[in-house]
């Protein structure tokens, strides 16, 4: 009973929040609705019994990725509304919905659900985190290490790409800098 209520509540809220993310003109609104939608998605994972995945979703998505986005948002001019040239919005809606439907059908059509068998079944009486750890460090050890190297490469490239000329202002709004300087002089 609680599962049903939670499922419908989470799905309605998630879809609504992600819709705001897609349609909003303001970067701040889009980012906050994306973050709260991700929190609700971790709720889905907890309902499904994937506790460790839910915690990782909370830490990595809501913690790390949203913090990275908010830092990036501070580099760009976030308070201004984004002006986007959307020619014929109804047509874009129709085409977008149709192509999304076609894409889902293409990927869903070949699934033959009777043929799916559990490759690494869950164990009875073992916690989810323990089970995940056993499978991750026995069957998926090489992908795990490759993912670690990939994250290292991503970190280095992020530092190198973003780190150049960080002392100068990106938005080049000189009046704001002058304002800060005059305030400093007045003190």
């Amino acid at each position, binding site marked *: 009973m609680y599962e049903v209520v939670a499922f419908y509540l989470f799905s309605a809220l*998630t879809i609504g929040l*992600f819709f705001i993310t*897609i349609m909003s003109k303001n970067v701040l609104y889009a980012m906050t609705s994306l973050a709260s939608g991700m929190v609700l998605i971790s709720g*889905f994972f907890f309902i499904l019994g994937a506790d460790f995945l839910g915690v990782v979703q909370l830490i990595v998505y809501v913690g790390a990725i949203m913090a990275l986005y908010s830092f*990036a948002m501070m580099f760009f001019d976030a308070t201004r509304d984004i002006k986007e040239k959307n020619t014929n919005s109804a047509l874009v809606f129709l085409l*977008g919905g149709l192509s999304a439907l076609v*894409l889902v059908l293409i990927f869903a059509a070949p699934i033959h659900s009777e043929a799916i068998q559990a490759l690494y079944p869950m164990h009875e009486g073992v916690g989810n985190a323990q089970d995940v750890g056993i499978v991750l460090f026995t069957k998926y050890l090489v992908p795990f290490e490759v993912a670690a190297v*990939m*994250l290292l490469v991503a970190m280095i490239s992020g530092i190198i790409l973003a780190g150049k000329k960080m002392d100068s202002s990106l938005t080049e709004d000189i009046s704001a800098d002058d304002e800060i300087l005059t305030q400093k002089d007045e003190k």
Partner: protein
Amino acid sequence: MIGLSHYLIVSALIFSIGLMGVLRRRNLLMLFFATEVMLNAVNIAFAAISHYYNDLTGQMFAFFIIAIAASEVAVGLGLLIVLYKKYGSLDLDDLATMKG
């Protein structure tokens, strides 16, 4: 009772929302948000299949998707900052330099 198809339908809906955003958005930062929506939708489908088939493979794939999303965001935001330094804008119509 909530079955597998409920979760898959929700996941497909969220994926469609994300795809619509990718097609609709002109600002690169907002385009990144839409791709995050799509990745999250796929994660829901993986976790649901993992639960209903009593199999851990789906959760493993979801972990790797999260790792890929994290590195994608790190590299992508670095590239966005470089683009913004160069052109002063993140609008895709302004960045179309190969237009004939």
